[in-house]
């Protein structure tokens, strides 16, 4: 295991993050605050409690998940797409490193960044609503796993993408709708029965439900299923990345 290489990639990527620290942290903080103002205070004040929780508090787990997923994807996809775009990927390919080391470096850094953003949003949310986290360890586990799996997914998108447009299209067309329809802002039980069934095909539902359970002790789907879903997603991403490096897909001729 080339530990120096993993460290070099990780530090290099984190430096890029810290170079733009203000932008990196400010935008999620501002957008979260806006969500709270709009959904929490303006609309939320007219909504009764959802499953025994005030609406403002109810949307916190969903908001964190929304940011962490999109940040994980954009950080990791950009991290590996940029070297391909400017040509510095030659160095990665000619270095004595294997795919696991490259992935650990890039995905590790992207996951760290999104984890930091998730924590910042959690702290921001604390200013607006009273948060009482019932299962802190489970909360952390769900958060870290989501950061990791979506950074892995972003890494795949970054390798697949051949233009900046393609880099944007999956998060925009797939992830955002899935997250919005995944129960970030509502409980599935509020939906008509047919939609309740359809929603169960949305993988994001399981993540948000599990994450919300760690906060409030209530879930739309069983927690075990949520854990299984995120483990399965991580596994699929890892397998895809392994395949990518074995075949050299879009990185090697």
């Amino acid at each position, binding site marked *: 295991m*080339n530990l*120096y*290489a993993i*460290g*070099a*990639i990780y*530090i*290099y990527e984190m*430096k*890029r993050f810290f*170079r733009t620290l203000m932008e990196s942290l400010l935008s999620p903080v501002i957008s979260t605050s806006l969500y709270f103002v709009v959904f929490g205070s303006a609309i939320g004040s007219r909504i009764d409690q959802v499953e025994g929780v005030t609406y403002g508090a109810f949307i916190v787990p969903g908001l964190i998940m929304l940011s962490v997923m999109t940040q994980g994807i954009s950080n990791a996809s950009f991290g590996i797409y*940029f*070297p391909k775009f*400017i*040509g*510095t990927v*030659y*160095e*990665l*390919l*000619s*270095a*004595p*490193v*294997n795919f696991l080391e490259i992935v650990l470096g890039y995905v590790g850094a992207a996951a760290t960044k999104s984890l930091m953003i998730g924590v910042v949003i959690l702290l921001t949310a604390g200013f607006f609503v009273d948060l009482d986290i019932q299962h802190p360890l489970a909360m952390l586990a769900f958060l870290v796993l989501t950061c990791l799996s979506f950074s892995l997914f972003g890494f795949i998108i970054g390798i697949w993408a051949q233009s900046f447009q393609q880099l944007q299209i999956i998060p925009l067309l797939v992830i955002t709708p899935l997250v919005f329809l995944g129960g970030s802002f509502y409980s599935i039980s509020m939906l008509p029965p047919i939609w309740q069934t359809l929603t169960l095909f949305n993988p994001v539902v399981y993540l948000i439900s599990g994450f919300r359970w760690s906060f409030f002790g209530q879930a739309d789907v069983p927690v075990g299923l949520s854990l299984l879903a995120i483990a399965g997603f991580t596994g699929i991403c890892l397998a895809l990345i392994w395949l990518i490096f074995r075949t*050299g897909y879009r990185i*090697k*001729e």
Partner: protein
Amino acid sequence: MSSIVEVQGLRKVYDDGFEALKGVDLSIHKGEILALLGPNGAGKTTLISTLCGITTPTGGSASVGGHDIIGGYRAARAMIGLVPQEVALEPFEKVINTVRFSRGLFGKKQDDALVERTLRQLSLWDKRHNQTKELSGGMKRRVLIAKALIHEPQVLFLDEPTAGVDVELRRDMWQVVEELRAQGVTIILTTHYIEEAEAIADRVAVINKGEILLVQDKATLMQQMGRKSLRIELAEPITAVPEALSEYELELSDDGQSVTYHYDTRGQSGTGITRLMQALAQAGLHLRDIHTRQSSLEEIFVGLVREGAA
């Protein structure tokens, strides 16, 4: 002499069916400077990319320091430094950080003294805190060299290192190459500039259309293949070469002031110069001056590539 890079029957066929390497055999000696000469699209970069792990070979095998480039890729690549043809650098990163990154990537512990020494050697020390995008084209190329050298490779591939570089920097780079050779680093250099190969290489390999046409000691190559020419300036201009001299195939200059005779130093029956002189005297031509000239590597190269095309 022991070899450090061994290439056997290396083939590369790209997805579009283009065969960039058609079974290349090459043995590179430890500590030498080998110039890989060839026209555009000859396969120079593909050969280097394949040895460095950027391109996957279709067939054949290659090893660096005895380590197979596929099976023993870690050990093989750790020995290699690569300076690519295209300048590719992360624009917002500082010079010193990007160099440190390269060392880490190649699995070496950070060594600040070495970083300083390398940056100073390449006149980059003053620029170490600049972002790479602030540097001139020549400076960026130096950064690429620093990145390639920072993990102390034993084999250095320089892919057109002096393309588009001014004369001063080119001389600087030759200097650096000389110093590296003195440290025992094996250097493989692809170039368009024949004068570059002529100036610094020990051996020359000519590649065209994915095949190595020849690998030879530079001096031997020039001696063996070097055709020489003898230009004879005449006291009185002539309009045509006298019939009696036709066997020498003299070339008459446009102004009729001189004739040129081509000969081969390898010739079994001598160069023919003595007989020519006598024949000239017999033909009644008076000489004013004579010049001999050895053909350059460039002419040899053009001749070879043309021969290969025919």
